């Protein structure tokens, strides 16, 4: 019997983990990645919640024992997907043609473009950054300074930027931003022990084990202050610091606070790849634009298209644990499909 081939679309953690497992299960794997390197968002991340584990460790373990039999194609964009009987024929922008017996879509997410939340002034005010920017600073070991080169004395983390916000077009909760904010606040406090750090939140959704503990530690040990209230708008003061207006909903009073640095916790949106591949394959999108499996509970990897499977955060916001577990579970489903 000829070895069956699976094309894995997207080389982030889900795609890499699934490719490895597929290869270990004896399948030919073609891993297609539109970017220059594998690893996805993990490449931009410094440390992970809740235990501040270096993201590099995860990347390293994803690369470790990466079977040579996997055909990795980076900087590859798929332009069309056709079918010939049970086989898929993928054409790329580079005019490559890939044939596969099954497709696994691991196209993941992108973060919300904070510029769209105009009133927060990202890209306009000097000292407004996103959680991704801050993580990049951490990763590059850049000293945390304001644009004027000062050590910030007050820093505000704004939760739910682009999430749970119909005005931004997104109804969903991005799930991981709450704990990310707490993690980053703690890391920042470690670097700037004198700074007063605030988290402005609507709800704190500490859904994972160890998250609530981190939250508690952030209050007790790092004295991060949590203020329930969503930022309505931010303004720039003469000195470049920011004036934030929130309602302190627990005192039921509008609150004005000056912050030297404002960090926007940008949420999860379906990646461009998720949108493009979903359209090429004619898959169903859920109201938030993520890909909809046939049955969220019972057939979480199956789609309306036979032979096309889903894994990872192309289906919706997920933390890394869930993403990797989902990838491994998708492999089981594909093996079942291809061996029957």
């Amino acid at each position, binding site marked *: 019997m000829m070895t069956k081939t699976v094309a894995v679309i997207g080389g982030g953690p889900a795609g890499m983990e699934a490719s490895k497992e597929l290869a270990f299960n004896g399948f030919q794997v073609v891993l297609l990645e539109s970017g220059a390197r594998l690893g996805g968002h993990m490449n931009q991340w410094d440390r992970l919640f809740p235990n501040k584990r270096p993201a590099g460790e995860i990347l390293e373990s994803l690369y470790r024992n990466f079977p040579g039999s996997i055909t990795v194609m980076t900087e590859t964009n798929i332009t069309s997907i056709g079918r010939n009987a049970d086989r898929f024929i993928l054409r790329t922008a580079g005019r490559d043609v890939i044939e596969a017996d099954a497709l696994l879509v691991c196209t993941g997410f992108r973060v919300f473009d904070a*510029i769209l939340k*105009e*009133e927060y002034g*990202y*890209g*306009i*005010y*000097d000292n407004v950054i996103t959680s991704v920017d801050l993580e990049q600073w951490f990763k590059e070991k850049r000293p945390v300074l304001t644009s004027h080169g000062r050590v910030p004395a007050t820093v505000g983390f704004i939760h739910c930027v682009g999430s749970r916000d119909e005005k931004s077009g997104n109804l969903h909760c991005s799930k991981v931003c709450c704990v990310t904010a707490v993690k980053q606040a703690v890391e920042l406090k470690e670097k700037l022990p004198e700074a007063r750090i605030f988290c402005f939140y609507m709800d704190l959704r500490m859904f994972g084990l160890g998250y609530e503990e981190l939250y508690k530690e952030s209050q007790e040990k790092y004295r991060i202050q949590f203020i329930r209230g969503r930022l309505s*708008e931010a*303004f*720039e*003061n*003469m000195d470049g610091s920011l*004036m934030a207006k929130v309602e302190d909903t627990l005192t039921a009073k509008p609150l004005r606070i000056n912050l030297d640095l404002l960090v926007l916790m940008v949420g999860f949106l379906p990646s461009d790849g998720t949108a493009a591949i979903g359209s090429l394959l004619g898959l169903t999108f859920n109201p938030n634009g993520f890909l909809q499996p046939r049955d969220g509970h019972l057939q979480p990897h199956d789609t309306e298209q036979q032979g096309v499977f889903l894994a990872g955060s192309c289906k919706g916001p997920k933390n890394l644990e869930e993403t990797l577990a989902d990838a491994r579970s998708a492999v089981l489903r594909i093996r079942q499909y291809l061996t029957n």
Partner: protein
Amino acid sequence: MKIEGKKRLWQQYQKEIAGDRYFYVRSCVRQNFFPGAEAVFLKIMQDELGKDVYENPAHTSCTGIGYHCDIVPFDTAMTVVARQFSLMAEAGYENFVTSCITSFGLYSEVLETWNHFPEKQEQAARFLHEATGRPFARPSNVSHASDIIYKYRHEIAARAQYRLVNSLTGEPLKGVEHIGCHYAKMFPSKGVGGAEYPYVLVGMIEEWGGEVVDYPERRHCCGFGFRHYAVRANRGYSLSCSRKKFESMQPYKPDFILTNCPGCPMFLDRWQYVISEMEGKTYGPGNEGIPVLTYEELAGLVLGYDPWDIGLQVHQVSVEPLLKKMGIAYDPDGKYLGPGGKYLGRPENPANIYFV
């Protein structure tokens, strides 16, 4: 402040502004408090730019004030609006230009309602017909008068006799701009530059040589608030709102405030006087106030019109300090003389604020 960030945003909020053949509707408030402003607009449009601007004496209030004071129902407002459009169509015009920001907001709101709820448009047409027998029509373009001035800011700059530059130091004059809430906060896409960082007035100031300063409470309401002002006991809210803005802008030492709404210049101007009377506080250098101008008045100054011809004498905060900075020659004795040298009378001298 990253200006390129703002510019990127402004590019997303470019609206279509008709170029000529305007049907002009007036503002209830401005006709009374700053009558010169509308006159200057017509003069610039017709005399300087040679545009066709038509006014129909039969047009009425848009009912926006009543609507926002909760005393005119929306259905009534829609019918009145439909009549204005009908007048425009009757005169053979398609481009609707409003002097008032609240009118602009109301016209936009009505049109959007009709777009989303066609049955409301049908209803408005029916009501219009039943009430007046007029045919129903819709404009192809609705612009605010400040959009038009913005559109022709380069032409005005080309004819400018004065620039927004301190004639002694050569430094650009610093202006803060205040956009009426109903201009873009309801429909950001209908304002030049959007709602958060509107460009319509910024574009004029920059084009005419000045520098815009942004300040934390820029987005805050001027304090009109309709019901807040309309009921005397509530006027304290209105006053407090304006004060909040003055307190916030004062550290930036603005030379003038530029507005595009009927209520805003009114309150930003008059409340400076009231605050000076109540608390002795003034916001300009020394005991001066910060002069407040409408965009037409500013355009008029730039074009070299006589300050008293464009009605600057009716401002509560004396504009003379600004005129001096711009190097505009004016006749101090002519301030209170109306057409034909007729003495108009002058207000009582305030206790604390500089007044000429």
